[in-house]
């Protein structure tokens, strides 16, 4: 597949299913906890026993209103539910309760950062619906198992306009949605556990063409990286097909992450007619103005607002502010560090550098960091006030990580205070110059790069505690003599 992709443009729309983090299900009182034994969290309603009726979990209305507000969307009132009919063993009622004509969230947009600047992606709608159960085909010889624990878990399906043009944009959009739902605390957004799932509608057309190509829908891609790869594969596949004189079939495809390919799941011949009609068991829901306002008033600061505040209040670069604000926990940690250190830029470097490296190493979330924000704040403060050098700070940080001790305790116990006394430093420098006459001679006859050698010797002599700037200044003047 080496067609010239530059002649082609991809048109991408994403459907993101977000599992809402309610305690109980969308229409029943059963628990939504992940990982319980099969069918232990499915009540009579989830099992679609004869005669049972759905009762809406009103918590989801608040969650949907928050998302809609974050996406600058309209909140529909009344909003209503519909039945989507299809037979599948893990869909116990034979229909899914979803929304059709009056989704709770309609319209809106999301601004994403791309290589060529900020791009606005339109949001078509976001609607509430119930999740299906799971069919387990490999666990039973010659039979399938059905686990209905997940059946009825609330989902918010967020549908974008087909305004995304590259895999990178798709990932940026997805990450941005991920960041928003985490900020709003409406979902844990865990893609590996399926709390956030993405279907990608992809078509290609020759650059400059106005007519859209035939699209395919690639289902349930369960990581940011896979979304990028699946879309990239699908674009290349479609271009290859068309350039080879074939046509694209409108179909649903499944991403195979092991081989990095997509393959057809079901073709159009089997396309369902879902026969949507209004759910007669649930009356349309009127959302009172006061209710909507109280929900909006309870909303936290959103990522883009936070980013702007970080730039204006802390004078951070756009890039740093964007990185920090993307994750609510990182942003909170950062603000706590700065409260103590009063040094936004240095704090950012430590969080994005040393701390991230150790967290990644041990696969930890920042909430579970072994060095608390208070302690990191103290460490940064000690660098800022000259107590320790940046280099020693790195050693101390590793010790803090392992022992859980405070920075000041380690400095005291190990005598690691920085040497900043000019006299003391001068004495050390004199000693080094005296012991290295050869190198001094060479330096003075023009071998400038030996300066580093002397710095190293002095730092070694001070066990790394001498203030590097002072060492530099004094050494320079001594060597020039």
């Amino acid at each position, binding site marked *: 597949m080496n067609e010239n992709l530059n002649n082609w443009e991809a048109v991408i729309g994403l459907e993101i299913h977000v599992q809402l983090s309610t305690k109980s299900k969308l229409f029943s009182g059963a628990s939504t906890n992940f990982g319980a034994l099969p069918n232990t969290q499915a009540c009579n309603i989830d*099992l679609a026993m004869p005669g049972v009726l759905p009762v809406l979990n009103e918590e989801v209305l608040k969650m949907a209103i928050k998302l809609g507000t974050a996406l600058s969307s309209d909140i529909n009132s009344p909003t209503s539910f519909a039945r989507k009919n299809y037979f599948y*063993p893990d869909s116990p009622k034979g229909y899914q309760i979803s929304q059709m004509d009056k989704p709770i969230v309609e319209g809106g947009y999301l601004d994403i950062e791309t290589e060529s600047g900020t791009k606005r992606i339109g949001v078509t709608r976001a609607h509430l619906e119930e999740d299906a159960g799971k069919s387990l085909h490999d666990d039973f010889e010659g039979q399938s198992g059905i686990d209905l624990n997940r059946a009825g878990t609330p989902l918010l399906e967020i549908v974008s306009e087909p305004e995304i043009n590259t895999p990178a944009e798709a990932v940026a959009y997805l990450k941005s949605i991920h960041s928003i739902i985490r900020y709003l605390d409406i979902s844990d957004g865990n893609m590996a556990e399926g709390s956030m799932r993405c279907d990608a509608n992809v078509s290609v057309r020759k650059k400059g063409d106005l007519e859209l190509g035939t699209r395919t829908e690639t289902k349930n891609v369960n990581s940011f990286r896979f979304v990028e790869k699946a879309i990239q594969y699908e674009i290349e596949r479609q271009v290859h097909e068309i350039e080879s004189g074939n046509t694209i079939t409108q179909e649903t495809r499944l991403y195979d992450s092991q081989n990095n390919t997509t393959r057809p799941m079901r073709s159009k011949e089997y396309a369902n007619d879902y*026969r949507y*009609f209004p759910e007669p068991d*649930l009356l349309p829901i009127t959302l009172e103005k006061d209710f909507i306002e109280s929900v909006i008033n309870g909303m936290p600061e959103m990522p883009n607002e936070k980013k702007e505040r970080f730039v204006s209040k802390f004078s951070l670069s756009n890039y740093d502010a964007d990185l920090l604000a993307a994750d609510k926990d990182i942003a909170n940690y950062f603000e706590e560090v700065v409260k103590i250190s009063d040094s936004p830029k240095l704090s950012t470097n430590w969080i994005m550098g040393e701390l991230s490296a150790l967290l990644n190493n041990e696969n930890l979330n920042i909430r579970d960091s072994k060095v608390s924000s208070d302690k990191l704040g103290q460490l940064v403060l000690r660098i800022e006030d000259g107590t320790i050098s940046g280099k020693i700070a790195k050693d101390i940080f590793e010790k803090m990580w392992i022992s859980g001790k405070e920075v000041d305790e380690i400095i005291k116990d190990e005598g690691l205070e920085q040497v900043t006394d000019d006299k003391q430093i001068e004495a050390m420098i004199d000693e080094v110059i005296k012991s290295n006459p050869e190198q001094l001679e060479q330096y003075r006859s023009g071998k400038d790069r030996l300066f580093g050698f002397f710095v190293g010797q002095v730092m070694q002599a001070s066990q790394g505690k001498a203030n590097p700037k002072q060492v530099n200044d004094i050494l320079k003047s001594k060597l020039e003599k």
Partner: protein
Amino acid sequence: MDLHKLSLKDQLEGLKKSEFTSVELTSHYLKRISDHDEKFNSFITVTEENALIQAKAADERYKNNKSLPLDGVPIAHKDIFCTKGVRTTCGSKMLSNFEAPYSSTVYTKLDEQGMVMLGKTNMDEFAMGSSNETSYFGPVSNPWDTEYVPGGSSGGSASCVSAELAPIATATDTGGSIRQPASLCGLTGIKPTYGRVSRYGMIAFASSLDQGGVVARSAEDAALILEGMSGHDPKDSTSLKLPSPDLTKNLKNSIQGMKIGLPKEFFEKDMPSYLEQSIQEAIETYKSLGAEIVEVSLKNINLSLPIYYIIAPAECSANLSRYDGVRYGYRCEDPKDIEDLYMRTREEGFGAEVKRRILIGTYALSAGFYDAYYLKAQKCRQLVANDFTNAFESVDVILSPTTPGTAFKAGEKNDDPIEMYLQDIFTIPANLAGLPGISIPCGEHGGLPLGMQLVGNSLQEDKLLQFAHSYQSNTDWHKKMPNI
């Protein structure tokens, strides 16, 4: 003593005054069931053992002065209401082995007030039918003449109350399934306002039309039990957020000066002369009681049948999708794969009428037909409801026949579904508009009873019962019982 000759109200009094025990009363009915029900097939399941346990408990409470409001009075439940620990079949092979793991709100409410369940009554499969001939458990016959049908779908409930095998029975009404069998069996049957009685645990046929109610021997008895069944249920989102109404308070008030509307569209229809005559006599009775008769127009009423036969099948086509052989109920033998499991389970588990309605409903909701059928039907449904709203600005109740005639012979209408569907021509409009309706015995022809229907404005069950009681206080039609 012929305990079954006492009204339900008098039975309750008798229990309170210790004139007899609930065990005596219950045993009396159980004996009548075992002696006579072979002829009628009105019960699918008789819960003899359970009934006696409940009766003993009631007697115990009477003894300890801890009695409940309806303590110790027997009742039969239509086999559409889920009852924990007792099979609930909905008249279908599909659920012939189904035991619900929970109880319906209607059963629970009456149980909590001390009522004793005698058993579960026969019905048209999934409540689809007007003659109780579609039941997997065999047809039910009319106690007035066993060659005739009792009506449907609550045919078992009507038949057993008419044969005095139970003092009262619960029933459900989607297009007339309480009122039509009540009319054909000479009983008083009331379908309340949509949302009055919880649908939780009442197996769904057409969700926006289904409503629970009772068939009884008098308006007075019906009022007592309907009151006990009604009230808001948080488990049913369509349940009205209102407490149970007091239905006995106004029962004995005079109807002097109140207005009865006669819809001219109904009276323009060809009606058998005996029916016209009986209705005319009922109108005269009401006039003599001080009611004023007014002609009203329900100009879209003739759309009711076609609207109903789009909406009800559409909703049923989805409601019955859950019967797939996967989790409970009937499952075909040795399915090859999932497709085969679905196809054969549903092919073998459902009867012809149920399949017909699933097909009609599936078709009406299909892509390309939805707007022309379902959407249009919903719009027309609103027109019918508006007609009633307008009419109730000038009248208190609307009177008509309940059915186009007396009961028909078993098998008579089986070859022509349309002819069968026409049975509900007078009753369907109240379901479409969500209004309360009652059928009251008002005459007979050829040894078979016939009834009139009163439809009331939303939430006015009390007024319907007042009109019915007023009529029954001055006539004897409701007292006539068949010789079995």
